[in-house]
């Protein structure tokens, strides 16, 4: 493996970042479903209570928007290293050890699981397409086969991103450090929050005098 990737790391890195970008782009595109979902449901509530004319298929659309949103964001989340992981010990590993553990577990857990999901999802969706399945919640409900197609599609994207992550592990094993990732918005972006509240690093430094002055008095 090391031999194989020996000289091609910069080129490889480009490919990795490209796949990251694809996953991220798809994730970003589907993220906006949350705006659609919010507006759809809020409008439906308004229709029910104010206009007194609820629509029967509203619930189906709600479910589809939600299901598509989180499934299609799976690969994006993986690209951002955002899936929850028990990092109590992992955080203390050296990058090489992290990469080794990850690589082994990608092969042992990730590949069988996600391949099974994608494979099974393909037939699941195909059956739905074959009978042009529509909602069973309401009569004359909206078609469900596009929604079921989301499973294999999302599975394929996650699989692709997973393979990229495995290559990252190999590079990390070779170089001893994790290759870079594309930038994206963070949940707790300390620098941005500081800017928002007009707090500068010097201000925080200056606070030390209050802390230090207290200490001897104790």
């Amino acid at each position, binding site marked *: 493996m090391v031999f194989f990737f020996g000289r091609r790391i910069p080129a490889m890195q480009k490919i990795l970042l490209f796949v990251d970008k694809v996953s991220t782009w798809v994730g*970003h595109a589907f993220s906006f479903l949350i705006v659609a979902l919010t507006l759809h449901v809020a409008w439906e509530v308004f229709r029910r209570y104010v206009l007194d004319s609820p629509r029967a298929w509203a619930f189906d659309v709600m479910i589809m928007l*939600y299901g598509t949103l*989180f499934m299609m964001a799976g690969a994006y*989340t993986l690209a951002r290293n955002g*899936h929850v*992981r028990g990092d109590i010990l*992992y955080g203390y590993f050296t990058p090489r050890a992290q990469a080794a553990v990850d690589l082994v577990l990608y092969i042992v857990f990730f590949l069988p699981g996600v391949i099974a999901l994608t494979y099974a999802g393909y037939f699941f969706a195909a059956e739905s397409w074959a009978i042009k399945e529509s909602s069973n919640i309401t009569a004359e409900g909206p078609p469900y086969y596009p*929604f079921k197609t989301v499973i294999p599609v999302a599975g394929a994207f996650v699989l692709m991103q997973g393979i990229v992550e495995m290559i990252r592990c190999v590079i990390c094993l070779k170089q001893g450090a994790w290759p870079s990732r594309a930038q994206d918005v963070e949940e707790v972006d300390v620098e941005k929050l500081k800017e928002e509240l007009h707090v500068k690093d010097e201000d925080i430094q200056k606070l030390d005098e209050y802390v230090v002055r207290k*200490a001897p008095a104790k």
Partner: protein
Amino acid sequence: MKLRKELWFGFSLMAIVVVAVLAFMPWANLLDGHLSKQDLGLLGLLMLALIVVAIMLGFPTAFTLMGMGVFFAWLAYRNVDPALAGQQVFDAMVQRTYGVMSNDVLIAIPLFLFMGYLVERAQLIDRLFRSLHLALARIPGSLAVATILTCAIFATATGIVGAVVTLMGLLAFPAMLKAGYNVKVAAGAVTAGGCLGILIPPSVLLIVYGAVAGVSVVQLYAGAFFPGLMLASLYVGYVMLLAMWRPALMPPLAESERRVPLPLFAQALAVRGGNALTGLSRALTGGGGAGVSKRTALGQLIVTLLPALAIAALLGVMYRAATAPVVEDNVAGLVQVGGLAESAAEEREQSTGVIGAPEAEEEESGVKEPAAEKVEEASPAEATAAEEKTAEKAAAPASQERLPAPVWFWVMLAIGATAIALIYWLWNWERLEVFKLLLSSFFPLALLIFAVLGSIVFGLATPAEAAAVGAFGGFVLVLIYRFIAKSRAAPPGGRFAGAVFWGTLKEFGTIIKESSFLTARTSAMVCWLFVGSGIFSAAFALLGGQELIEKWVLSLNMTPVQFLILAQVIIFLLGWPLEWTEIIIIFMPIFIPLLPHFGVDPLFFGLLVALNLQTAFLSPPVAMAAFYLKGVSPPHVTLNQIFAGMMPFMGLQVVAMFILYAWPQLGLWLPSVLYGR
């Protein structure tokens, strides 16, 4: 190679588990494919032990669960029919996944997350903190109390622990240090307050628990309301007592910190008299204007009168509720009231028209009371909607038939009147300014939270619908607050109005975009965990691990209290290595089936679990809150100081758990009143 202490400890634990698993594994039967029922159950338990080890290795948990689930489900199926095993595993996998995708409880999660990210980005936390701090300036430990309250409100609306602790670490922590507060007390207030959002509804944790345990999220929200309030008031009470007992830890604010800057018109009017209400009315009637324009005076007077209007409106609603001639819920009552029932039934007739065809058909048969009964039998949401309408329609024409107001109403009226009198007696110019500050920060947020919670708890909307409306409210908050901030930053003069407008829209777009991305990622994190655990728990059920655990637990002959304590201790211990999502999604399905054996209400258990997991956020050495605070605090504040500061609050959480154990009514009263549990 030298390993760190933590790693040694972790690895030895893992090694013990793995060795035990290898030793107990029924190897001989496993290899030739004929496992007895006993072997399968054992395999299920071994799977559970292995998953803990695998999670500790740090691989994304969703995929760990998926991989293990597929493997063990295949083992279980193979034992029945090797030829079909592969196909059955695939079917189970995709069915479980689709179950998560079409889950009508989990749908509320992205919506609440979205609302949280939007509210956080509306940037109203500094106004909120400033106004609460000024409003509470006179009570002991005011800054710490204001911090806890700000955290409670903000964390409730957003639910993002990391962001709340970081923001308050930048905002309240420096303020407290400058005011001479003890570092530990300050750190404790910020971290403990930031974690309140996990328990106080609308919290995502309760939705996840509801989805896993099959408990109605609506009831969970109603149940968590008072325990959440209790915990917040325990914190506030503790801080105030500490401030009174040892003022050195939390010196009162200096006069300069407390003073509220008065605007020009107020300064002019304040010379003539301290009370703002009389001052403004005089200015308006022309007696003592002191050069203040009538428009300003009128505007301020309207603001001044808002509390009175609010109290009056509240009393009006109470009066209507107390005397409304609607006989709710039971038909027996309908018969007893006789003549009144006639009109009520008629109104029902009108209102059923909008509900749906079956009820309307019943109406045509001319039998009124059974029709009314039919309405009650309709699905709860419809029934509530019908009652709402009935109540509204009944109120107008039947006002002459109103019931006499009960005694408690007159008591409330007296209290309301006294409150109004007291408020305006104390209503000086500073208080007017503080009230205006609160009006622009505290009340919109409180209104949003109560609108969302209220519509859920009173059955007007499902949690998902309320969350969507809440997220829409988030849009509005973002627009208003960003617009205000932009127009304040802009130089005065009408020419810049367009620039301010476009600037706001542009920022609004960015905020929506970022919030959407974060929402997608966090929902994917939670829901993919459900996808993984779907196949995993299917495998666990197939192997019969649950039966074995049940048999074992029952053989211990525990009393319900012992069982509850044991369960909570296990959950607390799991809270160290694992995140709350993992604990609830993976381990709750094991505890929930045990509850009926001990006669424990799953709703009550959920409240205890929520309190318990909140403690995990504050328990060293893995307390997330501490690390977020450390990230933004001055270098000489050590992690140990922060941990020490969190300790008393952790103690209070344990006290809260004991109170809830001792008086379960605290959590169960509201659901029982509202939903007749």
